């Protein structure tokens, strides 16, 4: 390719073209890519050395990274001997940066880590186990945390992080539009859900529910409501052809086939909140951040028009809300940190209910401890009672972690893409699940080899 470029440039010289042209920027991308692959070893040369003194290095992402500094002013007053330096990373780059830091021996002392990344960093052996410390710290009672969320932090029977805030998916719905369609209660079962969507369609909303096709969480939540595990044999093989997953996928695909949901992803909707406010759709499966967004964008005057409700449960399952996903982020301490004791002091400080309540006020993130949910807020109402967050309190008692394998992120992505394909091509749940199982078995090949090797040793 280089020869080609040189020859071409020579050709240009022959005509007497001044070489003033700016080359297309993409030309060097391949070379850069190749170089990128090979610089893997480079961080080892330039990585900062770990220090036993100096500030504690804390990597936080997104909005949390922006605001946690303000929270830490009080920590510095309580612990003048420890100074903390917060490095804010954007979420989009966080995963790469953490892996590169691990490869280059430049991990921070502690960091915020998405719950779904926990198995991956567990497999790397990057994180310090916290079991002994939690057992020795009376202020940290594991039973105070929502079980499903706590479970995401346990990898191979070791506790690798302390949940910091939680995320789950449930139903946001337009109470006024539901009432207009003759429904005064949010649906509690799949059957009631379908009936409600039918009624909303009859009341004049063409596609009453938004199930964004670019998110895997709605389908995952439906799948977690079934008893069948998503992977079998200790995470060696995909288990998507199970009756449970097919039931979930069938329900999901039917919502599109029956026109209950439009085949769209949320990027295609210019302003999701405005469209929700306008009544383009009346129900939406989403997460806690949308409480703040809806409050901000629709304003206090419209607050009575919308509400939250736990996910409906499959018909025939025990009473109570259906299961949902166990997302959120946790705080982890890195094994290579020389300041683990100080890092743990900070972890314990951030886990105090009063601090978590303030953190909620700053970010809207939902706290992982039941005692935080019971603390009265500025208006005297605890989160567990507050109108919009109440449904989350109920839902969080019913969350289940995704399979704890490092490949999960990729499996979830594949599931979302194949579901999207199945919607567009009107595939059957079985056809979709068969392809998914084949792909997932491919992703898990290395894992099976690793497990077999370990078993032999």
């Amino acid at each position: 390719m280089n020869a080609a470029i040189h020859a071409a440039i020579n050709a240009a010289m022959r005509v007497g073209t001044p070489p003033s042209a700016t080359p297309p920027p993409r030309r060097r991308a391949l070379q850069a890519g190749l170089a990128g692959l090979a610089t893997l070893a480079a961080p080892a040369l330039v990585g900062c050395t770990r220090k036993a003194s100096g500030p504690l290095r804390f990597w936080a992402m997104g909005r949390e990274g922006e605001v946690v500094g303000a929270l830490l002013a009080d920590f510095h007053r309580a612990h003048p001997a420890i100074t903390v330096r917060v490095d804010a990373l954007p979420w989009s780059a966080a995963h790469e940066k953490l892996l590169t830091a691990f490869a280059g021996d430049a991990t921070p002392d502690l960091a915020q880590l998405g719950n779904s990344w926990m198995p991956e960093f567990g497999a790397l052996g990057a994180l310090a186990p916290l079991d002994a410390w939690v057992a020795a710290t009376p202020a940290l009672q594991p039973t105070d945390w929502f079980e499903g969320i706590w479970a995401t932090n346990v990898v191979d029977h070791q506790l690798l992080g302390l949940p910091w805030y939680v995320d789950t998916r449930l139903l946001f719905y337009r109470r006024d539009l539901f009432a207009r369609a003759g429904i005064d209660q949010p649906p509690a079962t799949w059957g009631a859900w379908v009936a409600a969507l039918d009624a909303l369609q009859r009341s004049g909303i063409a596609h009453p529910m938004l199930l964004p096709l670019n998110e895997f969480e709605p389908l995952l939540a439906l799948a977690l409501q079934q008893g069948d595990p998503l992977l079998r044999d200790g995470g060696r093989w995909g288990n998507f052809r199970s009756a449970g997953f097919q039931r979930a996928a069938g329900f999901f695909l039917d919502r599109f086939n029956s026109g209950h949901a439009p085949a769209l992803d949320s990027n295609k909707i210019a302003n999701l909140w405005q469209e929700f406010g306008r009544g383009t759709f009346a129900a939406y499966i989403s997460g806690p951040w949308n409480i703040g967004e809806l409050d901000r964008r629709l304003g206090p005057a419209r607050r009575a028009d919308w509400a939250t409700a736990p996910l409906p449960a499959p018909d025939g399952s025990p009473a109570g809300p259906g299961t949902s996903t166990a997302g959120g982020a946790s705080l982890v301490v890195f094994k290579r940190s020389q300041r683990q004791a100080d890092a743990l002091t900070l972890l314990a400080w951030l886990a105090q209910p009063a601090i978590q309540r303030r953190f909620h006020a700053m970010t809207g993130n939902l706290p992982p401890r039941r005692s935080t949910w019971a603390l009265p807020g500025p208006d005297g109402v605890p989160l567990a009672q507050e109108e919009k967050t109440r449904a989350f309190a109920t839902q969080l008692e019913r969350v289940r972690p995704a399979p704890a394998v490092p490949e999960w992120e990729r499996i979830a992505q594949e599931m979302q893409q194949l579901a999207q394909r199945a919607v567009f091509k009107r595939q059957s749940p079985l056809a979709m699940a068969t392809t998914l199982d084949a792909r997932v078995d491919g992703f898990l090949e290395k894992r099976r080899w690793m497990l077999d090797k370990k078993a032999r040793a």
Partner: protein
Amino acid sequence: MKAPTLAQRLIAWSFVAPALAVIGLFFALPVAVGLGLSFTDFDLYALADWHNLRFAGFDNYVHVLTLPLFWQALHNTLLFVLAGVPLSIALSLGCAVLLQSPLARFKPFFRTALFAPVVTTLVAVAIIWRYLFHVKYGLINAGLGAVGIDPVDWLGDPHWAMPSIVVLAVWKNFGANMIIFIAALQAIPDDLYEAARLDGARRWAQFRYITLPMLGPTLLMVSVLTMAGYFQLFAEPYVMTQGGPLQSTVSVLYLMYEEGFRWWNLGQASAVAFVLFVLMAVSTQGLMRLGRRGEAAASA
């Protein structure tokens, strides 16, 4: 001429040594390591412990070449190259000829305006184009609606997403080639046109028999550069569609990025990179040969 002495050779080598060292360190070595990686299954587990690294032989290449997504990515990329390169060159040449015309006014203004997209950040441009392409509020659909054409979900419809990306990429990049063409057009002697006019050649005949042949070498260079660039489609789908909908805008380079930096399968990502490298080398060589044959035919 006398053969150079040892001292002369040493001096010569010492002059090229810094450049060679830089090329070796930042080009040859990474490429060699990348090639080595492509024969292993380097991934997250290998990152944790070198003992988890397996020599994979040609497995990665076999895997890549049997991966349905790779063929779809290749199909998407070829579609982009086959549609984008001719379109981009035609547009650059058309604008260059129009701007060279003695009838054109405000030439510096138009030259700058048409070149501006090239130097604008793609991310900023992408935001505006996402609005233009928007199915409900987009200017393009509004224009189509005015003449009675139903709205098209440009970026959301798997059939339209790649054409939309082509339009964006052509608009973004044609200015660079246009400047090259303007320079080449200025180098064509006026007497050729005068002679042609005396012989009664009209505008089209002048373009066909004077402008195009005189631009031959430039056209070849521009085609090779544009093709090499367009094969490496990445940023446009990355900022516009993230490879969607239904992976209709996943390009080969995008696939490499996902394998390598998202899923950390660096062995497989390297294999994708080398497959793309071979593809580009073959197609640019093919184009060069075609161009040379054309030149030979023209001079014969």
